[in-house]
């Protein structure tokens, strides 16, 4: 499964205990960088989390490159990397190297193959000097870079990032934003409140109250969103 993952939503609705989080969303996406914006509680995370089966549709069908994220979740998750906002809650291993290696568990790689990929990933996220550091000793920005590395090391085809810069300072936000938008070869779904990042995508989706309010050219969608909230 290489190349572009086509994301398809067909009349997808999601309810949590009777409350509607996503309302009849239909869209097909094959853009390289897909931005997602909208107010708090508008359904952005619900949309993003469906792409790797963390949320199940109450009705309708989701397909990511032909796979159903719920039924074929395990297979699909190898091809979909997910980054969350909180740098602390996605690091699972005590040291940097181990956390990276953790992503390669169960892939049938030899020790030296794992070591090789860990080394090259460490370099790409600028954490070589922290290879053996305890993960809790890293700064928030470094932790988020590690979280990104832990996903890239698995060589996914699609990276989904749910407000990856929400808890970072300006400099680290820029760093992570640039990485995601300009440096990784993967297809990207970027949920963000940072409208400048959204405007740099190839298409932007705007959610309001669980509905896909509009989608299209990033600059116009972002401009209308700003105008509505001015």
């Amino acid at each position: 499964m290489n190349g572009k993952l086509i994301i398809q939503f067909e009349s997808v609705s999601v309810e949590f205990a009777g409350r509607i989080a996503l309302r009849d969303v239909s869209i097909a996406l094959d853009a390289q960088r897909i931005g997602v914006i909208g107010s708090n509680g508008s359904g952005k995370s619900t949309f993003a989390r469906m792409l790797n089966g963390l949320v199940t549709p109450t009705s309708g069908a989701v397909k990511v490159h032909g796979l159903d994220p719920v039924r074929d979740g395990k297979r699909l998750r190898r091809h979909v990397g997910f980054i969350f906002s909180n740098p602390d809650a996605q690091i699972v291993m005590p040291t940097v190297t181990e956390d990276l290696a953790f992503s390669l568990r169960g892939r049938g790689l030899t020790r030296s193959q794992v070591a090789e990929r860990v080394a090259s990933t460490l370099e790409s996220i600028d954490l070589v000097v922290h290879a053996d550091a305890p993960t809790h000793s890293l700064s928030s920005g470094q932790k988020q870079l590690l979280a990104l590395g832990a996903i890239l090391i698995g060589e996914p085809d699609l990276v989904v990032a749910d407000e990856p810069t929400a808890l970072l300072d300006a400099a680290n936000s820029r760093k992570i934003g640039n990485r995601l938008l300009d440096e990784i070869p993967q297809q990207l779904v970027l949920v963000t409140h940072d409208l400048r990042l959204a405007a740099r995508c190839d298409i932007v989706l705007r959610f309001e109250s669980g509905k896909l309010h509009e989608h299209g050219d990033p600059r116009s969608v972002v401009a209308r969103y700003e105008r509505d909230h001015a």
Partner: protein
Amino acid sequence: MIGLYQPGTSLLHRTPAGVKVLVFAALTLAIALTAGGVWTLPAAGCLTAALYLLAGLGIRPLLRQLCAARWIVLVMLVTQVIFLPVLVALTNTGRVLIVIVLAALITLTTRIPALLDATERALAPFRRFGVNPAAIGLLLALTITAIPVIGGFATAIREAQRARGAPVRLQTFVVPLLVMSLKHSDELADALTARGIE
């Protein structure tokens, strides 16, 4: 108390993690079996202090570990004094304290990956009884990773309460800590799923 590896080149640092875990298990057993002995506690105490010196760590980390264990000690003492003679309660608590401080010595002188490897290897023979060494190793690793995070929550809550001039009391501390910890474990579960662990 965990995750405080201090680099060094002492005999203890160089000893394989598996050997250290085995010696620790043997010492714990010895302390438990000689419970009644008058000399058990002083002997074990001296041995522990000697091991800390041998590790080139000096006495300060030892004091820090003792200090870190003060709440466990307090709870143990109080609960035991209710039911047992004071001397028995004291020696019981002393033995547990020594075991804690010895365990801390392992984490002070062993890199975490080596420790996890050793644990998984040590548990391998129990596989036939349905024990999954990799799962236990993962659980241990997750716990080690989570301890500083939860420690951070505790600090944040105390600071928030101080900032508002609220007295720090047990109830007003434990509940938010639990809530934050549960939220953390929810988020962590999502991250684990996303990273392919079911």
